[in-house]
C-alpha cells in the first residue's frame, strides 16, 4: 500500500517536473513583449507631426544608437525640420538643428540612409528631399565630421541634380563593385501629379549618384526605368551572386526586383523570378530577410492592407503567406527582427502588431494584449519603422513614425542573454557599417554547413518603407545547454572572417584588415670602399584600424605579384639588397590578420633616380663638429 502511494506520488512529481520543464522552456525562449516608452525617452516627435522615415545609427560614436526622423511638410505647415535624437542613455535630445542635419526644404523629407561615404568610420547621411511645389528640391548629402556635427556637402551631387525630385526611398551600396559607395534614389522627377500616372514608354532617367571616388558623384541611368511611382526600396544579394540587387515597392506596376549584373547595371527581373502579379495598386514597403534560415533572402511586400510573403527557392520567389489586418491602414513598413531571441526572424508591421515566426517563415499574429503593442494600434497614420537595441540589452526595440500623431518607441522587455550582435567597424574597403556584408551564424564547429545555419543577415540601408535598422546584425542565439556559435562574415569582395566559439550575450566587433599606411620606398647607397650596393628600404606605419595584425607581406609588382617577405606585425620596414639603381620598382605591402585575411595592398613606386647617401656615423660626426 505504501509502495503504491509512493508510486502515485512519484508519478505526480514526474508530471510536475515535466510541466516545470515545459514552462521553463517556454520562458527560456522568451516571449515577445514591448513597452511603449516614447514619452519616457522624449522621442515622440513634434506636435506638428509629419513623421515618415526613420534611421538608427550611432552618429556620435558613443556606443549608443541615435535616431534620425524624417518629417514631411504640408501646404499648411512648411519647413518642418527633421529630427536627430541623440541618445544620452536615459533620454534623447533632438539636436538636428545644432548639428546641421535638419533639412530646410519646405516640404520636408521622406527617406534617408546613414552610410559611411568617406571611410572615416562615421555615418554620413543621404536624405531625400521631396518636391512639393517649391524649387529647388534636391536630395541632400551631409558629411559627419566625426562627432555627429554634419556638414552639408550637397554640392558634391548638385551638379547631378538638374531637376526637382520626388524621391521617396533611397539606397546606398557599392553597386558597381568599384570599392566606393554609390547612391540610388527613387522617382527622379518633380511632378507630384505623376503619382498615379504610368509613363509610357518607361522613362530612362538618371536615378543613381555614382561615386567618382573623389568625393563627387555623377548622376547616371543604370537600367532602372521610371515605370511608376516608387515608395520603399531595399538592397540585398537575393540571387547570391555577390553583388547588390535592388527591390522596389511600386504604385501601379508590380513591386519588383532589379538584378545587378555585377558592374552596377540593373535589369528588371520581377516577372521572371515570380513577381509578375501585382498584390494591389499601392505597395509602400518592401523588405528582404531570410525568414526560414536557409541562407537566402525571402521577400515581403507591404501595401493595401496586406503583407505578401515570398519564399526564395533557387532565386525564384513564390508567395506562400499573406498577412492581412482589419484596421483600415494602408500598410507601410515591415520589420524583420528576432524579437524573442529564439533564432528566427519575427515580423512587425508599422502601426500594427507583431507576428511570431514558427521557424519555417510562417508568421502568427501575437495579440497586442500579449505583445504589449496596444499603442502601436492606436497610431493614426503610421509610416516608417526601424529596429535597434537602443538600450544595449541584447534585444530589438522598435521606433515607429506617425504622420498624424506622435511617434512611438517600443522597448523590448525580453532582457535575456540569448543573443549575439555583430557590428562591422570596418569592411573590406574600410567602410564602417559594412553595407552589403553577409553575416551567417552557425552552430559552433559547423561553419558553412547549411543544416547548422542559425541565421543569415545582410547589412542594408533603408528597407521596407523608409526605415533603416541599426547597422548592427542581431541574432537570437539561445544559450541553453551551453550552446556556442560561429559567425561567418562575408564581405562584398568575397573575403570572409570567421569568429568561432562565440558565447551568447555579446556583441562582436568585426573589422577587416586594413592596409598599412604611409608606405614609402627609398633607394639608398650602401657603401663599402670598393663596392656600392643599392638598397631599397620600404617603411610603413601600422593602420590604427587594425587590432589583429599577425604579419605584413611585402610584394614586388613587376609583371605579376611576387611575394618577397612575410614579416612579423612588429616590423614596419623591409630592406631589399643589391637592387638596380637605375630601375623603377613598384612594391606593395599588405597586412594579414590571425585568420589569414589579407588587406588590400598599399603600393609605392620607387623611381629610377640615383640612390641617396645615408650614413648615421657621418651624420653623428657632422653633428659633433657643429656642436
Amino acid at each position: 500500500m505504501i509502495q503504491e502511494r509512493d508510486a502515485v506520488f512519484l508519478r505526480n512529481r514526474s508530471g510536475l517536473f515535466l510541466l516545470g520543464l515545459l514552462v521553463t522552456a517556454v520562458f527560456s525562449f522568451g516571449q515577445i513583449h514591448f513597452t511603449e516608452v516614447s514619452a519616457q525617452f522624449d522621442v515622440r516627435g513634434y506636435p506638428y507631426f509629419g513623421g515618415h522615415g526613420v534611421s538608427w545609427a550611432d552618429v556620435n560614436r558613443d556606443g549608443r544608437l541615435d535616431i534620425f526622423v524624417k518629417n514631411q511638410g504640408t501646404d499648411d505647415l512648411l519647413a518642418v525640420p527633421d529630427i536627430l535624437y541623440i541618445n544620452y542613455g536615459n533620454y534623447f535630445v533632438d539636436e538636428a538643428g545644432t548639428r546641421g542635419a535638419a533639412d530646410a526644404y519646405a516640404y520636408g523629407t521622406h527617406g534617408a540612409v546613414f552610410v559611411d561615404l568617406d571611410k572615416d568610420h562615421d555615418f554620413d547621411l543621404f536624405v531625400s528631399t521631396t518636391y512639393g511645389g517649391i524649387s529647388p528640391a534636391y536630395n541632400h548629402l551631409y558629411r559627419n565630421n566625426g562627432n555627429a556635427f554634419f556638414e552639408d556637402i550637397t554640392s558634391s551631387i548638385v551638379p547631378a541634380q538638374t531637376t526637382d525630385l520626388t524621391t521617396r526611398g533611397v539606397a546606398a551600396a557599392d553597386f558597381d563593385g568599384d570599392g566606393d559607395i554609390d547612391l540610388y534614389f527613387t522617382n527622379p522627377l518633380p511632378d507630384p501629379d505623376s503619382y498615379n500616372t504610368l509613363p509610357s514608354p518607361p522613362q530612362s532617367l538618371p536615378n543613381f549618384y555614382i561615386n567618382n571616388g573623389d568625393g563627387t558623384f555623377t548622376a547616371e541611368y543604370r537600367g532602372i526605368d521610371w515605370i511608376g511611382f516608387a515608395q520603399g526600396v531595399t538592397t540585398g544579394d537575393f540571387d547570391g551572386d555577390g553583388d547588390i540587387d535592388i527591390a522596389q515597392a511600386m504604385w501601379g506596376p508590380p513591386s519588383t526586383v532589379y538584378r545587378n549584373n555585377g558592374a552596377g547595371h540593373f535589369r528588371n527581373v520581377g516577372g521572371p523570378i515570380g513577381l509578375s502579379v501585382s498584390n494591389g495598386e499601392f505597395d509602400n514597403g518592401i523588405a528582404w530577410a531570410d525568414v526560414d534560415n536557409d541562407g537566402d533572402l525571402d521577400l515581403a511586400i507591404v501595401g493595401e492592407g496586406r503583407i505578401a510573403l515570398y519564399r526564395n527557392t533557387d532565386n525564384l520567389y513564390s508567395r506562400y503567406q499573406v498577412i492581412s489586418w482589419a484596421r483600415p491602414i494602408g500598410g507601410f513598413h515591415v520589420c524583420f527582427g528576432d524579437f524573442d531571441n529564439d533564432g528566427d526572424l519575427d515580423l512587425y508591421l508599422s502601426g500594427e502588431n507583431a507576428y511570431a515566426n514558427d521557424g519555417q517563415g510562417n508568421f502568427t499574429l501575437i495579440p497586442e494584449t500579449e505583445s504589449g503593442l496596444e499603442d502601436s494600434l492606436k497610431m493614426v497614420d503610421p509610416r516608417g519603422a526601424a529596429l535597434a537595441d537602443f538600450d544595449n540589452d541584447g534585444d530589438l526595440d522598435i521606433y515607429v513614425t506617425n504622420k498624424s500623431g506622435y511617434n512611438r518607441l517600443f522597448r523590448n522587455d525580453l532582457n535575456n542573454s540569448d543573443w549575439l550582435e555583430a557590428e562591422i567597424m570596418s569592411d573590406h574597403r574600410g567602410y564602417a557599417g559594412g553595407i552589403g556584408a553577409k553575416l551567417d551564424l552557425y552552430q559552433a564547429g559547423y561553419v558553412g554547413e547549411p543544416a547548422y545555419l542559425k541565421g543569415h543577415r545582410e547589412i542594408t540601408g533603408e528597407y521596407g518603407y523608409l526605415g533603416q535598422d541599426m547597422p548592427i546584425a542581431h541574432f537570437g542565439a539561445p544559450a541553453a545547454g551551453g550552446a556556442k556559435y560561429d559567425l561567418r562574415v562575408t564581405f562584398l569582395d568575397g573575403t570572409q572572417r570567421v569568429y568561432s566559439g562565440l558565447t551568447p550575450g555579446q556583441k562582436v566587433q568585426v573589422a577587416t584588415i586594413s592596409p598599412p599606411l604611409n608606405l614609402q620606398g627609398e633607394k639608398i647607397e650602401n657603401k663599402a670602399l670598393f663596392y656600392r650596393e643599392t638598397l631599397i628600404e620600404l617603411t610603413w606605419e601600422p593602420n590604427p584600424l587594425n587590432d589583429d595584425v599577425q604579419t605584413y607581406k611585402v610584394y614586388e609588382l613587376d609583371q605579376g605579384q611576387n611575394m618577397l617577405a612575410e614579416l612579423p606585425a612588429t616590423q614596419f620596414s623591409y630592406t631589399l639588397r643589391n637592387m638596380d639603381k637605375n630601375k623603377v620598382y613598384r612594391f606593395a605591402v599588405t597586412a594579414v590578420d590571425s585568420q589569414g585575411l589579407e588587406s588590400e595592398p598599399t603600393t609605392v613606386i620607387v623611381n629610377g633616380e640615383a640612390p641617396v647617401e645615408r650614413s648615421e656615423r657621418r651624420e653623428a660626426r657632422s653633428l659633433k663638429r657643429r656642436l
Partner: protein
Amino acid sequence: MKKAILFLAVALWCSGLALSQPQTRIKLLPDEERYFTVGLMGGFYFLQDQVFQDLYGKGAPFFGGEMTLRFPIREPHGMDIAAGGRTLTKKGLTSYTEEALRLRLTDLSLSLRYSYDTGRFALFLGPGIEYVTYRETYAESFPIDSTQGSQTGLHLTGGGYVHLTSALSLKAYIKYCRVETDKPGFRINLGGTEWGVGILYRFYF
C-alpha cells in the same frame, strides 16, 4: 698636413745645424763607401679618401720593410735607391647597414732619393712609384664576397736617419702617395700620407 710640414721644417732645421758645424766629420760611417741597408718599418697610413675615412676611420697602422742602396756622389751628397713594402689591415663597417668590412692594402714602392749624410745624421728626399694591391672582404649578407685588384701610383718621400752605430740607424720619414683607381666603376683615392719610423741595419760593400 700641418704635422708633416712641421716635421719637415724641423728636419730642415736639423740639417741646417749639421751643415753649420765644422766639417770635421764624426766617423761613424766609412767615407766614400757604398752601403746597403735593410730595415723594418712601422707607422700609420692616412688615406685621403673620404669614403675610406667614413668606413674605416682616418688612418691605419702598417708594418713593412725597406732596402736602400746608397751611392755616394761627393760626400755628404749621394743618391739612394730604395725599395720597400708595407701592408695594412683594417676593419670597418659599411656606410648604411653597418656590416663588417675588412680591407687589406699591400704596397710595394721603388724610389730614387737624394740623400745628404753627415755621418751622424742623414736626410733624404725623392720621388718614387707605388704598386698597391687591395682586397676588401664583405659580410655574408653582401652579394659578393670580396673585391680585389691593384693599381700603380707615385709618391714623394722625405725623412732622415740617425746613425746610432756604424751599422745601425733609426729612420723617420713621411711619404705622400698618389694612387687612384676607378676599376669598380667609381673613383677611389688610395693615396694619402704615410708616417713611419724604422730601424735599419747597414752592410758595406
